[in-house]
């Protein structure tokens, strides 16, 4: 008989790592489910937020990182402010995303979200500010939906809402340096 939860597959260090990085007491969770009850996106999630917390407690690293839950988190922080045990669930989701990002683990179903994040950040790295047209264009190209939201484009353009040329800040090279040093610091941690 195959047990889904087998101590051999569990990473008992996982909870400690996530706990240390998020500075929140994951082992303190008593599974009341209030986070999942109030989550605006829980419906779309493979595992509900409370289940993710439970899985971290158990050390189910692989299942947690492969789930779409953290990528669907909208960072609305409702879970954190209502948690009776003062666990910062939103921060845990952030930590998990960074943890997965470092290791390059992205579940296929939500692969477009990290892609979006990457393009967004590259945008800022280049110009110091966001260039929406470039962002949306690149994103659609990379996710294979070149015509998504294409109907909204002209509407917004005629209302003077889209810049055709990106805004640049004067010292864009400074921003590149910040990106570089941040990456170094993250890496050394």
């Amino acid at each position, binding site marked *: 008989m195959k047990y889904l939860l087998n101590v051999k597959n569990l990473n008992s260090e996982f909870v400690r790592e996530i706990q240390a990085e998020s500075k929140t007491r994951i082992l303190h969770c008593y599974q009341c489910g*209030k986070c999942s*009850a*109030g989550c605006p996106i829980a*419906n779309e999630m493979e595992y*509900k937020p409370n289940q993710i917390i439970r899985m971290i407690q158990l050390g189910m690293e692989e299942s947690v990182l492969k789930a779409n839950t953290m990528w669907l988190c909208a960072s609305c922080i409702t879970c954190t402010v209502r948690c009776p045990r003062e666990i910062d669930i939103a921060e845990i989701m952030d930590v998990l995303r960074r943890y997965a990002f470092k290791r390059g683990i992205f579940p296929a179903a939500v692969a477009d979200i990290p892609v979006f994040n990457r393009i967004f950040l590259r945008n800022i790295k280049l110009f110091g500010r966001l260039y929406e047209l470039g962002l949306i264009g690149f994103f659609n190209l990379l996710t294979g939906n070149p015509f998504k939201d294409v109907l909204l484009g002209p509407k917004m353009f005629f209302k003077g809402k889209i810049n055709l040329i990106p805004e640049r800040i004067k010292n864009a090279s400074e921003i590149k340096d910040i990106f570089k040093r941040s990456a170094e610091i993250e890496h050394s941690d």
Partner: protein
Amino acid sequence: MKIGVFVCHCGTNISAVIDVQKVVNDLAKMPGVFAMDYKFMCSDPGQNMIISEIKQKKLDAVIVAACSPCLHELTFRNTLIRGGLNPYMLEIANIREQDSWVHTDRDKATEKAVRLAKMAVAKAKRNQPLFPQEVSVEKSCLVIGGGIAGIQAAIDISSAGYQTVIVEKEPSIGGKMAMFDKTFPTLDCSACILTPKMVQASQSKKVKIYTYSEVEEIGGYVGNFNARIRVKARSVNMEKCTGCGICWQKCPVKVNSEFEQNLGPRKAVYVPFAQAVPNVPVIDCVNCTYYRSKRQNPESKGLCRICEKFCPAGAIEFDQKDKIIEEKFGAVIVATGFSAFDHKVYGEYGAGRYKDVVTALQFERLLNSSGPTQGKILRPSDSKEARTIVFVQCVGSRDESKGVPYCSRVCCMYTAKQALLLKEHIPDANAYVFYIDIRAAGKNYEEFIERVQDEYGVLYLRGRVSKIYRTGDGALLVRGADTLSGTQVEISADMVVLATGLVSNPETVKLGQMIGIPYDKNRFFTESHPKLAPAETQTAGVFICGACQFPKDIPDSVAQAGAAASKVLGLFSQEHLMLEPVLACVNQKICNGCFHCRAVCPYNAIDEEILKDKSVVARVIESKCHGCGNCISACPVSAVDLKGYTNEQILEQLQSLR
């Protein structure tokens, strides 16, 4: 000074590791010391040996080098008494638990035994005879709080023949239990089992009840407490009033009734509920037209006065004043109960803005056939019958973020009961219960929950509710989760009942500081020992029972009330009390009046005394002192000392290790 050292072999428990003979020899070399050994010092022949040596050698103090003082200190103190010595001339050197049992090296263990015995000798040299103090006992008990716990304690003490006084701040005794509809798990009607007790207490010659009263001050010590009680002006003469009820029928002022949890009206002159004891109304000065007009224009005759006009007994007395009563008591029982958690801090549940989100206590009143809706489940906003009701557990319990980390213990059970009663009132009603864990640890409790789920079909959903809000059609939308199925749950309800937790009474801190009962971080009173002394407190002669110690259901409160009463009776069965003589004392010649000692004393046992030269110095109230020695360490001029553990004794002990 002649000191006898008696070294015990304890069979081989000690002698197997320690060279007893060497200990005896080493000690006997000390000046003024006589030493000997014996197989079992605690046995009768052993004790008799000590007695005969005391008499023969004219010993002034005795050292027993044997097992821990925790075991046989009392035994050997009695031996000393039998030998004609003051029992406090005894010292024990613990050479078994802290020597022979924990070491293996014979030389080192023996050496340590010698050190321990010599240290005891050093202390004993400075020992003084101590005498327990004797105090009388005033055989009357003050019970603060007239809920079920207070009433039960008063009945128990009075039926043993002792005087009891109940002080209750509300106009009637009965407490929270009087508000309940039925009680779990037997579904007895709460009033049916409480009212007879209230009547029994009020009719007993040995019980005096002060309602609408508060304890303002308590001083003194075990056996001899002095209490000052303020009996607030009722504006109604208790002797003249017959409780006929004409005044409150005629009174034109309607306000929300506290007893009905603001769901129903009461008049400005009122009894909180029909079976109130005493059945005498009070006038609520804040809302009464007469008092309001008098406040605006003190010169006028005052408006309204309808109650006065109609009272057939002439019992209305507008000019009544508060009365102060001073009485002496030998013991105090604190039974001040709990408050219901105020859910205003739950913004996500509407913070009290939605009328149809009610508390459990409000729902009790709605269920009650003598309540504001005569037992119909009508929702407060539009008085329509509520057919879908959601119960939300743990509101103000197990919630650190709201400052209430503990479990309130009774909510699981009362919620199940309320859901059951709802189903009995409206069989086709929908009842949903959101819970985290069901805690039903009590006789027949688990079976009760089972019945509610199986027979009555109440649907239990495992998860905390995240948000409650009102939708356009006036219904309440409850957003929760069921973690067992891993789904979000949304229920459109007519009414939501919050299972509000039990929190400490707001007066706890003030009262605790006044009487000297410590309270925990949740402001519940702390018992003297969590297992072995659950009704006692740190202050001798003061006892606690009921929910002022921690949330409790009725059977537990009643049981603890009985326990507190039996402790009081034990106290009252003594003519005199003997108090332990290990107490602090002040050398008033040295004391500089800085009162650092008073600042650290946990028992308020330090008082001021003015000497003939007008200087203010400290004095120890011996009956309050517990002998911890905190004041001694705090004294900058070494004016305070602890009998039995004086600075001199301890320094001598340290010196002996040289």
